[in-house]
């Protein structure tokens, strides 16, 4: 005789009921992916779901088995055509979405629904690559509840609300496990293996080169670049220069960084007012930490470059936090190496002849370099240059074209032309990119710096003083520095939507939302090895000692398991105190050698037990008599139930 297999599916065909649940689960999971999927794929998935739900689905209405492989091959080909690959993040997600749709098309057995649910979990995870906002979290929770409902619907069939209630009870029981594991599971900093090339694609931020138009493009983005929560005083707008890559090398069009030496300490001594802050830097896949000028030593895991940039040891692939302090009034670079100064004087041969002529003119009128700098600023201010987000295209001689022809430019034009002018006049100069400005969010008093605050300025080197910051943009658009981008641009120019000054109420709303987002970022998304350590240290646990962590986790999980076991017992046990008291009595007699026989009623049993233990005969008969009356008499309320309990409790042989 064949033994039934140990884990066969309880039912082999599928009714319409679990199919509808599976459709809800798949739909909820796919919906947030739609904007990122090719239109045809989204439409195909939606069509499949709708078709099977609307056609009063029975398992027999599943598509014929030959159809889905054909569709899979066709759609796989289209994905290959669309993305050029089947691997990588976007193509992978598209492929998963496709599999989900096709799986639904051929859903016939309970196992198909189980596979569908697992696919949904993967897709949910895929969404987190792009966004991990609180809203995504809520969506994932809804998806998980519907997935639970789908799995439940394979075994029971209740109205939707009852089913959701069971699913929610399961979720509520799972929640404590999630919290304990989230806090205590050792956070290993990723990546464990090489990331696909496009893992962090589409992240905006500065780059290590600058050509005209680069920063004005960045300025269109309202995305947050980083946040700084100042402890104590907040620096005035004019000091809010957050240093990114320093660009020294120039080929006539592009500015690029120059290799510099790095050290564990900054090369200058810090003086003057100090501003201390906690930085939360969004991932930008580069190494710049964008510290406020000029940072003091002591930023964790950072190196200090000779051009005063602070670099992380690895590319910043995830949001990171660090504490830093800035001394904006420090004197820096007084002992700059000659090689570096030579680099800061290089200009391509025979370029920008008009700018060179202007430099000669400035040089002939002023002897000292600092006077040349001042004269140049004055010239710029009087040259009637316009500050605009949409500058016209420049020719080969970018500085000449900007200063003398188009006269319209964004900060990179100003910085670039000024540095060319300085070099032509023999003053070492270089372009610094980074962010300038920042707004205080009134809800948590942290300063928010957006991509639209990206900026380029210049530095000139003066003997005896060192590197001095000169912001040529300030010469023609001084309000850029004090009031941000919106204040500096002419009223009619197209601005990023939320930077526009007339939408204050919207900005308040945004501030509030971003405050929530910041809290979410700090405590949920930013919960990494470092946060975990500091939190656990506060709970006096040493994360370095893995045994302590293991014990803490075991205690937490063990406690939860015990609570669940108690819950299971409580709900399963008969809720009949009388029955339990009688059982206790039976146990006592059984220990004395008189177990109740299955067919014996209380009176018979008592008689037999009494004759077995004559010393206790009266007590035994009294208990049995009272129990029988409580259980079987017409008016049990007339009998003292409490007395029975205490009698049984006292009874001993």
């Amino acid at each position, binding site marked *: *005789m064949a033994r*039934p297999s*140990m*884990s066969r*599916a*309880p039912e082999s065909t599928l009714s319409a009921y679990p199919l509808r649940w599976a459709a809800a689960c798949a739909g909820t999971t796919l919906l947030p992916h739609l904007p990122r999927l090719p239109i045809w794929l989204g439409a195909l998935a939606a069509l499949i779901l709708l078709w099977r739900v609307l056609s009063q689905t029975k398992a027999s209405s599943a598509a014929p088995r030959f159809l889905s492989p054909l569709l899979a091959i066709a759609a796989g080909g289209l994905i290959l055509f669309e993305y050029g690959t089947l691997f990588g993040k976007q193509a992978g997600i598209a492929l998963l979405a496709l599999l989900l749709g096709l799986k639904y098309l051929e859903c016939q057995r*309970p196992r198909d629904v*189980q596979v569908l649910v*697992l696919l949904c*979990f*993967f897709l*949910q*995870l895929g969404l*987190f*690559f792009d966004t*991990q906002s609180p809203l*995504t*979290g809520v969506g*994932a929770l809804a998806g*998980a509840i519907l997935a*639970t409902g789908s*799995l*439940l619907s*394979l075994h*029971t069939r209740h109205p939707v609300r009852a089913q959701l209630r*069971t699913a929610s009870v*399961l*979720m509520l*029981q*799972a*929640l404590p*496990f*999630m919290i304990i*594991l*989230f806090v205590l*599971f050792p956070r290993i*900093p*990723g*990546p*464990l*293996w090489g*990331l696909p090339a496009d893992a962090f694609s589409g992240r905006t931020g500065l780059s290590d080169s600058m050509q005209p138009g680069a920063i004005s493009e960045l300025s269109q983005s309202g995305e947050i670049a980083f946040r700084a929560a100042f402890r104590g005083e907040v620096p005035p707008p004019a000091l809010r220069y957050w240093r990114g890559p320093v660009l020294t090398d120039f080929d006539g069009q592009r500015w690029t960084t120059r290799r510099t030496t790095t050290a564990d300490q900054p090369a200058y001594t810090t003086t003057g007012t100090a501003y201390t802050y906690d930085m939360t830097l969004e991932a930008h896949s580069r190494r710049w930490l964008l510290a406020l000028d000029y940072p003091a030593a002591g930023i964790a895991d950072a190196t200090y470059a000779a051009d005063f940039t602070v670099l992380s040891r690895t590319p910043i692939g*995830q949001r990171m936090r660090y504490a830093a302090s800035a001394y904006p009034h420090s004197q820096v670079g007084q002992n700059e190496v000659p090689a570096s100064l030579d680099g800061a004087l290089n200009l391509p041969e025979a370029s920008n002849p008009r700018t060179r002529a202007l430099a000669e003119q400035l040089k002939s009128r002023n002897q000292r370099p600092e006077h040349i700098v001042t004269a140049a600023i004055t010239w710029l201010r009087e040259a009637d240059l316009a500050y605009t987000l949409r500058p016209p295209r420049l020719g080969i001689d970018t500085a000449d074209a900007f200063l003398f022809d188009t006269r319209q430019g964004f900060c990179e034009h100003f910085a670039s032309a000024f540095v060319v002018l300085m070099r032509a006049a023999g003053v070492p100069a270089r372009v610094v990119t980074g962010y300038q400005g920042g707004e205080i969010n009134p809800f948590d008093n942290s300063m928010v710096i957006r991509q639209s605050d990206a900026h380029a300025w210049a530095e000139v080197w003066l003997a005896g003083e060192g590197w001095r910051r000169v912001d040529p943009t300030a010469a023609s658009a001084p309000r850029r520095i004090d009031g941000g981008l919106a204040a500096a641009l002419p009223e009619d120019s197209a601005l990023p939507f939320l930077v526009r000054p007339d939408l204050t109420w919207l900005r308040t709303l945004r501030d509030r939302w971003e405050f929530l987002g910041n809290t979410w970022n700090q405590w*949920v*998304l930013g*919960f990494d090895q470092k946060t975990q350590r500091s939190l656990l240290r506060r709970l006096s646990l040493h994360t370095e000692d893995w045994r302590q962590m293991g014990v803490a986790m075991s205690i937490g999980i063990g406690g*939860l*398991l015990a609570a*669940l*076991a108690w*819950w*299971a*017992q409580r*709900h*399963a*046990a*008969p*809720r*009949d105190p009388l*029955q339990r008291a009688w059982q206790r009595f039976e146990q006592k007699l059984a220990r004395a050698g008189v177990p109740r026989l299955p067919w014996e009623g209380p009176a018979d049993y008592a008689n037999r037990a009494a004759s077995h233990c004559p010393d206790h005969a009266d007590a035994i008969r009294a208990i049995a008599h009272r129990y029988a009356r409580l259980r079987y008499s017409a008016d049990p309320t007339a009998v003292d139930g409490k007395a029975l309990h205490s009698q049984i409790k006292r009874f001993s042989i």
Partner: protein
Amino acid sequence: MTTFTAPRRLWSGLRQVIDRRLFRIRPAEALPLRLPQRRIFVLPTRAGVVFALTLFAMLLASINYTLSLGFALTFLLAGLGIASIFHAFRTLLHLEIKAGAAPPVHCGEPAHFGLIIGHHGKSPREAIHVRTASATARIDLPPDSHTTITLNAPTTARGWQAIGRVVIETVFPLGLIRAWSVLTPDHTLLVYPALESRPPPPPASAGASGQTHTDSGDDEFAGLRAHRPTDSPRQVAWKAVARSGTLVSKHFQGGAGGPQIFDWHQLPPALPDETRLQRLARWVVDAAQNDTRWTLILPGTQLGPDRGTQHRHRCLRALALYGTPEHVTRA
């Protein structure tokens, strides 16, 4: 051949040890019984294992890409899996199993074992599957309720047939975890011998063959007498009872036919035992159907003469148990 049987024997021996030690199965357990905690086992199903592997992959992805929400989702789903262990466990906990009807059948007919399954808990128990080697039944129990299921089994030999190993299991709620309990309840039914399909006609009745008998015959009404407990309800003179209030039976005087005698020893000597039993069973069944009186004579036993359902059962039981130790002691 031995090379094949040796591992099989080893396996069946191992299986017995596992059954005894791990599943705590004793030869047969008296019903009713209640599933205590230590008799319920839980293990992941195949779907549960795949679910766990999926979670592991999700955990790796979350670590690699530092997806905090990925961690949260993975841990939430892990918690879900753990919680479902207790739901499955609770579904079986303190389930009460009582013996239901198990009417005797003739060999070859399907046997129907009734089981009453219930509980006194305050939450429902759903998607419980009860299965034996040959049948499966699904039950859903509302709070504090019980239900009766009937499990069919093929019959291949006369005598007592036990329900055998019963597995009570559930994969409720998510199909990831299977909770089960194995029991061998002391629940048996009697399998009567099969009925011979074309038997020769039974021997003529005792009266016709000239035998005399003094016991109450059955054809002609002879008067009323005091009721005896062995009298069948048919013999009770209900009208007279209604008038007098005391039980009286109708007394018949033997007429043309005395009781039929079904005698083991009268059958052809070459006939095998089982065929004899089948033939006698057929005669008994036919006689009961025709509501005649009969006597069954087996080696060492004589039953009757009598009539009616009780007598029929006694005879068929004796036939079913012929040759077993019980036959000797109970006859």
